[in-house]
Structures are given as C-alpha cells and as structure tokens.
C-alpha cells in the first residue's frame, strides 16, 4: 500500500478558511460557558425547577370540549367536588389542561361527570390523562440520579482504559457542562420538566461524549506521532481542526432530526426535543471548545509542576 504523509499543522490550517487558534483562546470559551451556566445555577438555587406531576405526583387531565368553556366554570366545578388546582385554556377556549392532586378513581369519575354536566360535553377520544402517585415521582428522580452516576462511572472507566484518566476527566467535565446548561436554562425560563426530560438529559449525556471521544481519538492518534519539540497545545489545536468538519456536520444532521421532531412532533414531545436541541448544541460546543482545552489545561499544569520543588509555580 502506498503511503502519503499525514497532514501537517500548517496544511490543516490552510484547509480551513475560518482557521483560528482554538486552543490558545481557551479562556474565552470557558468564559462563554460560565456566562451561560452561572445564571442557570443561581436560578436553580433561587427558584429551582418547575417540576411537573411526573416528579411531584398529581393528576393532569387534558380535555377537549365540544364548545368553548370558561376558566371559572371549570374552577367552580372543581370546587364543587372539593378539588383545586390551575387550569389552562387553549385552542379557542375549547382545550383545558387541568392539574390537581393525585385523584382516586372514585373522585376522578365524580369530577369527570361533573365536568360533563356542569361545564359541557367533551370529546372522549382526545382525552389525555396522567395520574402519578407521589411515591412514583420520587422514584423517577432517584432512578435518574442513579443512572447519571452509574453512566458517568462506566464512561470514566471506558475512557480511562481506551485513552487516559485525564481524558476521562476532561470529557466528564464537558458533559456536566452540557447537563448544567440544559437544566440551568430550564430553571431560568421555568419550563416545566417531565419524565421525557430526564430521558433527554441522559441522552445528551450519552451523545455529547460521543462528539468529545471523536476529537480525543484524533488527539490520541496525533499524540503518538508527536515529534520532539512540538507543543501539546498545537497538536491539540490541529486535532480539533482536523475533526472540525465532522463535528459540525454531525451536529447539523442531528439538529435537523431534532428540529423536525420539535416543530412537527406535536405537544407531547416538545419538552423532550427542546431539551435535546439545547443539549446537542451545548454538547457540540463543549466538545469543540471545552473538552480538549480542559485536557490541555490539565496536561500543561501537570508538566509545569516541578518534580522536587515544594513551591508550585504559578502559570
């Protein structure tokens, strides 16, 4: 087999018309991430997340009435059977989203009959109803947390075996970045979260690392070929640019898929696809601008630490 020479740093720079040193400017990228993440974290502490019934338990009934109805009529009917909770009308006041405590079946039947007689006829074939007992909600949160921790542990193990521990740590930090961006934004805008949101966050967790690993793979390959005197920073910069087209194009195809679900998929998958859209975008950003840069940061600091010296030298 014939052998060509692998691209040099200069050649890689020339191929990309928009080239700039992506590793040197790393503090800028970190700053941009922090600008997005910090308000989210503050919001998480101040107002928390707007959790739906999947987490806190309760009943949610989505009814489509034949004729327009009023909010007061529904609220009054709820009161008449001893219930309370927010009611949202939409669709020319024919659709009502009613939230209340987790209803026992008897109570629920009493309420549905009352709706029929006091508020108006509704369409049974478009009725959507969710009831989640409080215990189930706690389970969901707990399981999601376990899943996150275990997935994280397994990923660290896998990346450490296939790469190095430093890579694993950099990758996981970038991942946590993405989770924080999504959760933070959902808290900031108080978008209601549900069970599919958890799936979205965990998928982002799995997907974003995919992007990062592809870049790490290139760094691993280039690192092995590094010559004496070449700087680690430049090698990483080269690797990031060598995989740039792939990073961008892949994220575009995934975003295309997600956008079509977001726009055409209907109400039921909207929260899921919104979380995924934000997460995939953030994942692409953190893979290109954060993960390898964190790696460089750790590696250069490790090197700068003198072996015997007691005083650490500040960079």
């Amino acid at each position, binding site marked *: 087999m*014939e*052998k*060509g020479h692998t*691209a040099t740093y200069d050649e890689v720079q*020339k*191929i990309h018309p928009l080239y700039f040193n992506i590793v040197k400017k790393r503090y800028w990228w970190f700053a941009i991430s922090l600008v997005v993440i910090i308000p989210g974290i503050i919001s998480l502490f101040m107002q928390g997340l707007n959790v739906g019934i999947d987490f806190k338990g309760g009943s949610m009934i989505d009814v489509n009435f034949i004729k327009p109805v009023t909010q007061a009529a529904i609220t009054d009917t709820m009161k008449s059977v001893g219930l309370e909770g927010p009611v949202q009308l939409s669709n020319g006041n024919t659709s009502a989203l009613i939230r209340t405590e987790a209803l*026992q*079946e008897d109570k629920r039947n009493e309420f549905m009959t009352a709706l029929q007689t006091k508020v108006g006829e509704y*369409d*049974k*074939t*478009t*009725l959507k*109803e*969710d*009831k989640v*007992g409080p*215990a*189930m909600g706690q*389970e969901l949160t707990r*399981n*999601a947390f376990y*899943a996150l921790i*275990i*997935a994280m542990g*397994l990923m660290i193990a*896998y990346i450490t075996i*296939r790469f190095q521990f430093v890579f694993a740590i950099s990758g996981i930090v970038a991942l946590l970045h993405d989770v924080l961006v999504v959760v933070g934004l959902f808290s900031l805008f108080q978008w209601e979260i549900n*069970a*599919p949101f*958890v*799936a979205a966050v965990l*998928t982002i*967790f*799995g*997907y974003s*690392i*995919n992007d990062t*690993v*592809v870049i790490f*793979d290139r760094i691993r390959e280039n690192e092995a070929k590094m010559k004496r005197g070449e700087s680690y920073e430049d090698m990483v910069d080269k690797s990031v640019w060598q*995989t740039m087209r*792939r990073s961008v*194009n*892949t994220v575009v*195809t*995934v*975003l295309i*898929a*997600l*956008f*079509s*679900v977001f*726009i*055409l*998929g*209907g109400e*039921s*998958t909207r929260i*899921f696809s919104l979380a995924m859209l934000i997460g995939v975008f953030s994942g692409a950003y953190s893979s290109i601008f954060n993960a390898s840069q964190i790696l460089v940061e750790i590696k250069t600091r490790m090197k700068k630490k003198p072996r015997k010296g007691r005083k650490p030298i500040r960079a």
Partner: protein
Amino acid sequence: MRRGNILKLVTLVLLVAAAVALSIKPLVDPVKGIPLGLDLRGGVHLVLQAEPNKNGAPITKDDIDKAKAIISNRVNDLGVSEPIVQADYDKKRVVIDLAGVTDPDKAVDILKTTAKLTFRDPQGNVMLQGNDLKDAKGGQGENGGYVVNLTFSSDGGKKFADLTTKLIGQRLGVYLDDKLLTNPTVNVPILNGQAEITGYDTLDAAAKDAVLMRSGSLPVSMSIAEKRQVGASLGVDSLHRSMQAGLYGLIFIFIFMLVFYHLPGVVADFSLIVYALIVLWIFWMFRVVLTLPGFAGFILSIGMAVDFNIIIYERVKEEIRAGKSLRAGVESGFSRAFVTVIDAHVTTFIAAMTLYTFGTGSIKGFAMTLGIGIIASLFTAITFTRLVLRLTVGINPKMKTTWFGVRREV
C-alpha cells in the same frame, strides 16, 4: 471489473428497493406489524400497587403472582390485542399496558377491583366466599332485567347447598367486595350448584361483574400508583405527527448529505434507508412496542447513524489529501474511522444501557430504540456502507476525487 461493479451496484439498489416495497405492508400491519404503544393509538397504562395487608401480614411474591394471573385473566376478557401485564416483585406492583382499549374507564374499573365475592347471612357474617366458582356469565334474566349466572365447582356446589339449606326462609346477602349485589330470600335449597344474581339494569353491568367473579378476587387490595390514559384519536394524531417529523427529518438529512458529500452522500443516503429498514425489522421481530418517546429516539438515531458516514468520509478525504489514491483512501479511511466510531458509540451505548436499566415506562422504550439504533448503525456501516463504497470506487480507479467532496488544493 468495471462492468461487474456497476452490475453489482444496480442489483443492490434493486434489492433494497424491493426490500423497501415488500417491507411496508408487514411492518405497518395493524395486527401483525410493529406494535404501537398506547400513546400512539390510545389506551391506558396502569401501575397497581399492592396495599399493605391490614393485619400486617407481609405481601409475598406468591400474592403478586396470583394478582398478576387474575389481572391477566381480566385483561384477556377485555379483548385487547397484545396487552402487557408485568409483575414487579420488589416493589410489589403489577404494571399493565392496554394499547387500543376502547373504553379505558371501564378497563381501569375492572382491573383495580379486588372483587371478593361473598355470601353473607342476615347478620352480615361471611358464610361462603366465591373462590369455588367454575364459571360466571352475564345474561338476560327470566323475569326481565339482567343477571349473572354462577356455576360452582363440585366442592363449591356442596358448600352452597349446605348454606342454602341452613338459611332457608332467611335472606342471603350476595356481596362483591363491600357492595351488596342482591339480597334474595332463600325459598328452597339450591343443590345443583347453579345460582343467579339478579338486579342488573344493563347487560354490560352484568357482564362486567361476571368477568370479575370469573377471574376471582385479588389476594391483596391494589391501589393505582400511576395511570396514563390517552384517547384513541389523540394517539392517532401523535402517530401521524411523529411519522411526518420522521419523514421530513429524513428528507432534510438526505439533502444535506448530498450537498456536502456528493457521491458518498448518495451512498450515505442509501445506507440510511437500509439502516431504517433493519431497525424497523428488529422492532418487528422482537415485538418492541413503539411509543412516542421511542419514535423520537428512532428519529434521533437516524441523525446519529449518519454520523458514521460522516466520520468515514471525512477520514477518506484526509487520506486522499495526504496523497493516497481513492481506493487506498477508502480502505485506510475505513479502518481508521472504525476505531473512532467504536469508541464513540460504546460511550453512547453505555448511556442507553443505564437508561434502560434505571428507566421506567416510556423512558425504557426510548432507551431501547436508542440502543438498537446504535447497534444497527454499526452493523450497517461495517457491512453495507463499506461494500457499496468499495464497489463505487472500484467502478473507475481514475474517478475524480471532487466527487468525494475533496477540493484539489495546492
């Protein structure tokens, strides 16, 4: 060589086209096709939680098994295709999925009822429990109205004969749980093991109680821990929307790949079709129930399956730029990209697996489609994409590299 390759490629295209044409019908068949979840066709999802016994006795695995069996019987009486009834022994639950059930309210009512049939004397003491029934049927009564006809087992028939002998001239209360169904006066002992419970207004009501009596009573009382109910036409609407989203997503990804990767883009689009077919047939084969999140997962996986092609093509481009011939570039690009792809997808697969292990309900469905998608895209890339790419490159060794999206720089 050249003619042979073109022939092989044309045959492949025709084969795939035929596979697509032949697959549509069996895959979307309402009965034997890919099973749709209740959120795509209407239905109800119930999680029944066994309540702790009042006397403090622990709930055993046996209790849950019995409850599951009884609930399964009742479910079968509802006439739902492919119902799912699962027992969760750790949490002492029975999980029920009824997709396509016509009257979800009635179904919920039937499933959660303990349905303990008892015969009581006028003082309210339980004299006989309805565990010894052989059959119960709803029907029309002789004197108008509707009835449930009970047939006791031979053992039960004897007990019932004893009871009616003892209670002659007195009232016999027939209760289902704590509801008094009927309270007739016993005129003559009933020795033939047949009894009739009268007083139903509709055949439906009689039939419903007959189902409960026939299936027997739950060994523990159950409460509804979770219920998700979707109206039938809402489900159909979701299905249409999802399919539309999938279709448009696919079309735009097709266009994107063509614009950016030219000839290999065609190969990628072709591989995507094969990929989608494989995934759908896996769903079909393993009866994976397709839910709304599952559908979203599938569409997402299409976006991710392209990733394979992108990694490979970018690598091939690099190899060509590094001075390799097209064919050598494809070969070495493929083997290099393969390492990358494995590492990248194992990590995503780890996430899908943990999601499947810890997730509940709809999350599990999503994780399943994602996991299947990853494996199927690996498989498609190694077998199909590589073959087609080799054949394409083999057509003409002097094929222009611009067809592969490589601009001739320098």
